């Protein structure tokens, strides 16, 4: 079973989000990394780039496939996880920790309310076929 920490918010595109003040930390879920397989390349935006909600901000590539990653909310990138350039496998081994992808300053923290809770996300993925 995929690991779904209770203290995070989730998108239907399989990103997770952790609120830290007015900043959101974003990555992909355990379910997503498991579906992708061994991650070999992560393409991320630069600090200062601005995104609307549900916009593609980069891509994750496994041996087998490419998957775009989407912003769960709107905002401005304030930090990216540079270490994934050399160690993309962190996305597999620690998707909610060392495998985080970007930190965004949120335009509207209220957008977080539209995301799924851990229970809702678990329900969502159990209905989805890989």
């Amino acid at each position, binding site marked *: 079973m995929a690991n779904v920490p209770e203290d995070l918010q989730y998108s239907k595109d399989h990103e997770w989000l952790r609120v830290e003040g007015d900043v959101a930390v974003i990555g992909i879920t355990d379910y997503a990394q498991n579906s992708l397989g061994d991650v070999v*390349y992560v393409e991320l935006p630069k600090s200062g780039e601005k995104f609307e909600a549900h916009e593609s901000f980069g891509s994750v590539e496994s*041996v087998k496939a*490419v998957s775009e990653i989407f912003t769960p909310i709107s905002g401005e990138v304030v930090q990216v996880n540079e270490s994934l350039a050399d160690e993309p496998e962190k996305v*597999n081994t620690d998707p909610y920790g060392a495998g985080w992808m970007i930190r965004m300053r949120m335009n509207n923290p209220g957008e977080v309310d539209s995301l799924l809770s851990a229970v809702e996300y678990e329900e969502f993925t159990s209905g989805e076929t890989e």
Partner: protein
Amino acid sequence: MDTPQLKQTPLNQAHRRMGARMVDFGGWDMPVQYPAGTIEEHLRTRTHAGLFDVSHMGEIDVRGPDSIAFVNRITSNDVTKLVDGQAQYSALTTPEGTVIDDLLVYRFAQDRLLLVVNASTTPKDWDWITSHKAGESVELKNVSADYCQLALQGPGALGILQTLTDLPLSEIKYYHFREGSVDGVPSIVSRTGYTGEDGFEVYAAADKAEQLWDRILEAGRHGETDGALPCGLAARNTLRLESAMALYGNDIDDTTTLYEANLGWICKLNKGDFIGREALARQKEEGVKRRLVGFETTERGIARDHQDVLINGERLGQVTSGSPAPYLKKNIGLAYVPVEFAKEGQEIQIDVRGRAVGAQIVPTPFYKRKKE
């Protein structure tokens, strides 16, 4: 995931029991990877041994006095060169010299051959082969469902399999086979494979598949840190790509000729008439306009199947297979390019989702195992 319409190999339950992730592969419910993951499966096959379920492959039994003459007329390689117990890589060709399928031709006797074809093309191949039977005295039988096929590949393959059989495996030469028993199960043991490693493919009755699967993994000390690993289709693909072996449906199909795909070596124009001979002879004489080449990217980025190849800014070709190469730790691919650019060192670019990624044409195979 409930997909009852997909075809299953006799090892379907075994794959699920071992935690494989299953995908629809050309209408077959197949393992794409096991819990170890594609990279580990790939590397273990290069360093020790990997076991693959390839029972989805099709088998067509050919018997009768005209078996050799018939198969020689519908395939491009020379079947008359085979001796009993030998196998041959070949192709079913169209009158245009393009490829209906690539296959292995096994010779059991002068009047008995076995054709091993790709899974998703088996129905098409069967129709093609049966409809091209002319006056020859041959009996054709699609026996695909009767067989399981397990491929044990890697430098440790011989040692592992030898513990389960009395057949003197080291005496079986590359592209030869013997009939004998493996763990008490009547089998065909063939020194062939699709990984670029030494190894064997074992054909046996479908209902013995799980027994053989479990016993081979056990003999390979599966579960120990350096033991044999079951491998999925993703590793099968990266292994064959590192070895630059063509994949039907990607690198070759009924729009590509054997010469374009660098398969002139299975094109025996002097063996007598066969379907496509005239077109292939003409192409050999006139030369091809495009050719399949290997490339590796020289900038960050991974080329994928179907992406365009740019040369001097122009869209002049297409990637047929593109992937990271886990053993070589490079990003590689095969692509068709106009023949004037099909030379080592040629700089090209790959259109990776709108970004032009630099690449260079390199010699193939990308990976070649060291012979002992």
